């Protein structure tokens, strides 16, 4: 499907045309390519773990039977279902958590066990391409790297020619880089939401996003979350796994709406609180104005004596003008600061992207320079040691006899080992190396150019940041300089009182009339001012938010229509799996437009939370298996086809369940063995002989 953005904008503009300009509608809705970012068609990629290796030493504070034991664990892992069977607390969960640590950088390994580990190597492949993750955990700071190809041990990895795809220092850098890698591989991106700033006294609203670790919850099903369907950000995970069309723009517009709501609330709470209150008073003012007009009409008698209070009225009007203008200034400054901060955030982001790019280029440059040095040295060392005779055998110290030397000259055989000498190879080497040096130097010139360009761009960005920062500071200062309207209001009141007291000196009729005229002027002005201030801001926010809500609803409906077939297939698959697991009481499954999954049990539709605890894990496993089947059978969705299930038998005592689980696992192996991979850790020995690949640890023994 190609989404017709122009048509969509036109439709909404027709609906909001009276109040919002076309450019405003466009600005709110135009997210560039975002509308066609999602596709439910599968990438066909699968993540397959080939081998897990880790080393270390069991160091304990108190003497244990395993103290000081060396850890040297290596296990090949195949397609299909793989089961580790061992007693509880013997290390199976740790293996699964080590795999998770390697794949995400997010550490949930028990603290003491983590301390034991010094090196972790994970070999995996995505489709047919092999990769190796190497985590060095010897020191306090993690060093994590990702390599192309398959390497099984630290020596192989440390070969000088192995250039990693990336090398990260520290967990958070590793998390970012590995996330970037997997996001790219599986076409994932970060779905966003907003949340309050964790600092209690802050009213900032933060935009945060789902990480690779969040999405990983759909791969590693831990026994501790078995009564949660898919984690607290689960709907985001579900949407990402399905890849339904329009998910990205819906998400983006929702975040935009949250932000607007927040801005509106802030404005309301500050400057506009007063204005809003006055708006409520407007009705009262209107009524009073009507009364005054009536009274003035009745009392048409001219005043005989004139008193000059015009100058006071003038001051009164001036004061009101001033209050109005100061208020306007303050609103204007607020808007200016807000838009400057937005700009600042954007430039900051661009700057850090460029900094990353620069550091990658610098690494490349260093690598090339090192290589040039190596090659140049090689050629010169060759020259330094050239034209030398072999004089002694280094082993026995005998001089090399003349006949052997002749052999070398005449037959090109080594005078020590008599093997043939390949002169051509050496000759070729030199030419090839010279060319390599030239190419590397050329490449370096290009890289340096690129770095300079980046430097220029970054210098500009820094200037921009400084300029914006000082703009913000100036605006902040100007805000301080805005006159205190409270003071002005006090003066206003004073003038009002003087006017009133002047009037009292006038004859009753005149006095009454003057008072009425004065009051009329005040009320008319107040009404006018109220109309001005309210029109400029609030209405606009509300309209924008309403527009976004309408747009989101429309997109949601379109998405649901487009996705109907996919969701229907998914629920059918789920139902079959759930029955396989022995949960025959669920007779129908329905997925709603906001991704709630409803299960019909005993005639009522219920949500996951309401399913009996003993049945939840089955439902959950069924859900993920169905997602994978959806990919395999119908080519929809983006699940990496890897499931890691920790202790699936722990809470569910039902004998049918265990029987059902082993049946399902057997059947998965038969039906999809080569298309997916499931890793299970369990203490349940009844699950032995279910899978072809099983790693059984004897009772009371440790897995590693």
């Amino acid at each position, binding site marked *: 499907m190609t989404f017709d953005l122009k048509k969509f904008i036109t439709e909404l503009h027709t609906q909001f045309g009276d109040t919002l300009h076309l450019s405003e509608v466009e600005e709110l809705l135009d997210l560039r390519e975002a509308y066609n970012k999602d596709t439910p068609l599968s990438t066909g990629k699968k993540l397959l773990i080939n081998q897990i290796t880790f080393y270390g030493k069991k160091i304990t504070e108190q003497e244990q039977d395993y103290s000081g034991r060396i850890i040297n664990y290596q296990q090949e892992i195949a397609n299909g279902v793989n089961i580790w069977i061992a007693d509880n607390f013997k290390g199976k969960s740790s293996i699964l958590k080590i795999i998770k640590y390697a794949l995400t950088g997010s550490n949930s390994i028990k603290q003491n066990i983590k301390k034991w580990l*010094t090196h972790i190597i994970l070999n995996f492949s995505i489709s047919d391409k092999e990769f190796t993750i190497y985590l060095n955990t*010897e020191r306090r700071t993690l060093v994590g790297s990702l390599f192309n190809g398959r390497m099984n041990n630290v020596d192989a990895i440390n070969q000088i*020619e192995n250039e990693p795809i990336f090398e990260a220092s520290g967990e958070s850098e590793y998390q970012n880089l590995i996330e970037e890698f997997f996001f790219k591989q599986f076409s994932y991106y970060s779905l966003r939401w907003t949340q309050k700033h964790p600092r209690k006294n802050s009213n900032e609203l933060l935009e945060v996003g789902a990480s690779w670790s969040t999405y990983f919850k759909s791969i590693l099903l831990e026994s501790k979350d078995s009564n949660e369907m898919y984690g607290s950000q689960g709907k985001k995970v579900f949407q990402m796994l399905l890849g339904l069309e329009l998910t990205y723009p819906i998400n983006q517009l929702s975040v935009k709406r949250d932000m607007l709501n927040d801005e509106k609330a802030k404005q309301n709470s500050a400057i506009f609180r007063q204005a809003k209150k006055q708006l409520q008073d407007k009705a009262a003012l209107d009524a009073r104005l009507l009364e005054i007009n009536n009274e003035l009409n009745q009392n048409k008698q001219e005043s005989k004596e004139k008193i000059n209070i015009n100058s006071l009225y003038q001051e009164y009007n001036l004061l009101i003008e001033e209050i109005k203008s100061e208020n306007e200034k303050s609103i204007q400054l607020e808007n200016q600061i807000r838009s400057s901060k937005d700009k600042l955030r954007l430039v900051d982001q661009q700057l850090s992207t460029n900094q990353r790019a620069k550091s990658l280029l610098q690494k490349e440059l260093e690598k090339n320079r090192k290589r040039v040095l190596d090659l140049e040295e*090689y*050629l*010169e*060392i060759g020259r*330094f*040691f050239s034209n030398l005779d072999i004089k002694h055998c280094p082993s026995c110290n005998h001089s090399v006899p003349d006949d052997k030397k002749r052999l070398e000259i005449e037959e090109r055989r080594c005078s*020590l080992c008599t093997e043939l000498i390949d002169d051509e190879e050496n000759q070729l080497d030199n030419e090839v190396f010279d060319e390599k040096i030239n190419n590397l130097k050329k490449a370096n010139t290009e890289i340096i150019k690129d770095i300079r360009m980046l430097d220029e761009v970054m210098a500009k960005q820094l200037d921009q940041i400084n300029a914006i920062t000082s703009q913000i500071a100036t605006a902040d200062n100007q805000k301080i300089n805005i006159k205190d309207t409270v003071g002005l209001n006090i003066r206003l009141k004073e003038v009002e009182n003087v006017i009133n007291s002047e009037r009292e000196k006038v004859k009753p009729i005149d006095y009454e009339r003057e008072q009425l005229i004065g009051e009329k002027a005040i009320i008319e002005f107040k009404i006018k001012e109220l109309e001005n201030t309210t029109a400029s801001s609030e209405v606009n926010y509300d309209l924008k938010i309403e527009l976004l809500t309408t747009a989101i609803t429309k997109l949601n409906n379109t998405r649901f229509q487009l996705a109907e077939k996919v969701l229907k297939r998914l629920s059918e698959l789920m139902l079959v799996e759930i029955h396989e697991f022995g949960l025959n009481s669920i007779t129908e499954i329905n997925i709603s437009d906001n991704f709630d999954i409803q299960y019909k049990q005993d005639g009522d539709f219920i949500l996951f939370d309401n399913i009996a605890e003993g049945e939840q894990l089955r439902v959950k496993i069924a859900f993920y298996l169905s997602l994978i089947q959806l990919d395999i059978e119908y080519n929809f969705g983006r699940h990496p086809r890897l499931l890691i299930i920790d202790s699936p038998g722990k809470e569910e005592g039902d004998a049918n369940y265990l029987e059902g689980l082993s049946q399902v696992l057997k059947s998965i192996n038969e039906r999809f063995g080569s298309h997916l991979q499931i890793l299970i850790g369990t203490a349940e020995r009844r699950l032995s002989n279910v899978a072809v690949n099983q790693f059984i640890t004897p009772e009371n023994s440790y897995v590693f």
Partner: protein
Amino acid sequence: MDEVEKIRSYKDRIRIFLILYFFSEDFLEPNKPLLKKVFRSEMRIQKIDFLVRNPDYLAFELLNIVRKDELKKEEIKHVVKNIFQNNEPVLRRLEMERFFFGAYEDIDDVISFLKSIGFIDFSSKKSSDLKTVDKLYFITDLAVNKMGINISSLPALTWYVDRCTLIKKYFGDMSATQLKVAQYQIDEYRDTSYKSYIGSIKGLVVEEFNNIYNEQL
């Protein structure tokens, strides 16, 4: 032998040879007229080699000298700055493994090669239990001549010559044991486990430099 191994073996040959050449003393023995210089003990090769291969450690040890000898403060500042300005801790670094007695790498192949082309000779003194206790390396007439003719026309090797001269200036008088003790003062070196690579200490040097000179490296 692939390209990387080949380059590596060539680099080892020149480095070890230059270390032997520059750190040896003159040798005069009427019945061995072809031997011109003598160098004592394999362990000393290893310790000096470590300084050649790890410019960051060299810089750190130079800064240690400043702590004891205020007079050298300015000249060492210049040296350390140069090392870092040329990015040597990255470009010239050749990692070394930690063995029982500190940094160590098998150099038998290199020594055999140098011996076979007649550049060096060696003799081992054995103790009563036949363990090698003192190995002497001799530089031959041929090698001394070759150095005189050849090395100045090879610009890519100048770095090694300059580096050996520099190390000799500051650490030439130290024995293998003294060098070892100095290297063991550094946490990163001491804490590296057996058969692991000794990591870089660039950050530490920058910090130390800042402490001493109140200036960013």
